[in-house]
């Protein structure tokens, strides 16, 4: 593997980050199933804490984009960078919980197992509200992603090149699922890899866009979403008629 270990605390802020107030390592928890709430200094801080800002009364179409990646890769940070709300994490019960609870005699601790995921919201216009979901990409959490992916517009695979193998499973499942996605490399200031190296390491389809981003930056995170939606547009664009043979 070409992923290289380096001290994340030594990472430098990428140039385009607006006065990033913290080292990237500070906002990424490797702890448990929920990525712990990032420090209170990220760019979205002043957007909304406390009560949810409400949608307009005409809002009638909820859209989904999933951000998937390993722990500490910056999913939470990216979602918060662009979200207009700062909700508490929410959770989904494990896939088998229903079956267990249905059988009263079999109630065990297992039925309480939940996985936390975080989300954010962007009001696009009076009708459309875009919801972003950060989902852990590891195999053992995939049941959650499978649910999130139903009806989703597409996905962003967030990659840390120092731990690139965290992304393999997610990409494999997205391809299997037929969910369109792009890959965004969150810049932790580690050794530079060329796009070719990253594509090679991920065995990435050449048609899948690969971009760099700084999840702490609102502008950069916004660009990630725009890249995904532009990719979707090309995927769903009506194909020009085949020339008659």
């Amino acid at each position, binding site marked *: 593997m070409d992923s290289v270990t380096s001290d994340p605390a030594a990472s430098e802020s990428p140039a385009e980050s607006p006065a990033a107030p913290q080292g990237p390592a500070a906002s990424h928890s490797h702890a448990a199933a929920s990525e712990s709430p990032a420090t209170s200094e990220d760019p979205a801080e002043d957007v909304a804490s406390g009560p*949810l800002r*409400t*949608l*307009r*009364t005409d*809002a*009638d*179409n*909820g*859209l*989904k984009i999933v951000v998937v990646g390993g722990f500490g890769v910056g999913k939470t940070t990216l979602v918060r960078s*662009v979200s207009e*709300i700062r*909700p*508490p*994490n*929410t*959770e*989904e*019960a494990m896939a088998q*919980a*229903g079956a267990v*609870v*249905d059988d009263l005699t079999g*109630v065990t*601790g297992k*039925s*309480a197992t*939940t996985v*936390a995921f975080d*989300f954010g*919201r*962007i*009001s*696009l*216009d009076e*009708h*459309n*509200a*875009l*919801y972003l*979901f950060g989902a852990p990409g590891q195999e053992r959490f995939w049941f959650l992603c499978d*649910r*999130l992916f*139903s*009806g*989703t*517009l597409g996905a962003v695979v967030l990659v840390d090149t120092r731990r690139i193998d965290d992304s393999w499973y997610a990409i494999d499942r997205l391809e299997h699922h037929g969910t369109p996605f792009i890959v965004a490399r969150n810049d932790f200031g580690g050794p530079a890899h060329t796009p070719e190296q990253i594509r090679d390491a991920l065995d990435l389809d050449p048609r899948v866009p690969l971009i760099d981003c700084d999840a702490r930056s*609102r502008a950069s995170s*916004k660009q990630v*979403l*725009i890249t995904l*939606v*532009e990719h*979707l*547009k090309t995927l*769903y*664009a*009506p194909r020009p008629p085949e020339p008659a043979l």
Partner: protein
Amino acid sequence: MSRPGRDDAPDRLYTLTGGRTKAGPDAPFDLVTLVVAESGPAPGMQSEHATILRLCEAPTAVVELAAELRLPVGITRVLLTDLLAAGRISARHPRTATAQSLLDPDMLEQVLVGLRNL
């Protein structure tokens, strides 16, 4: 006021829904289905139901309700199914949930415009 939380024993959640763990096959609630209250809380109503009605005076997604209630999404769906059946809420379903292959290019353009205006 104490609300049921993620660290509670599973029987607490089980009690909230009268033992139901699934919202039923025809339950229409996606994570991003927008829920709108059609009436205010009524006396004697289960407190979670009343809380939901207060939360969704303006359109509110299922996932937001679950987060505010601090309940798992599945449990929240069951509670919403009750309220829908009682006519106390209405649900605005995402237009993409069923036919992903038929994503409307116009809608994608709207999304793009919205994102660029951020």
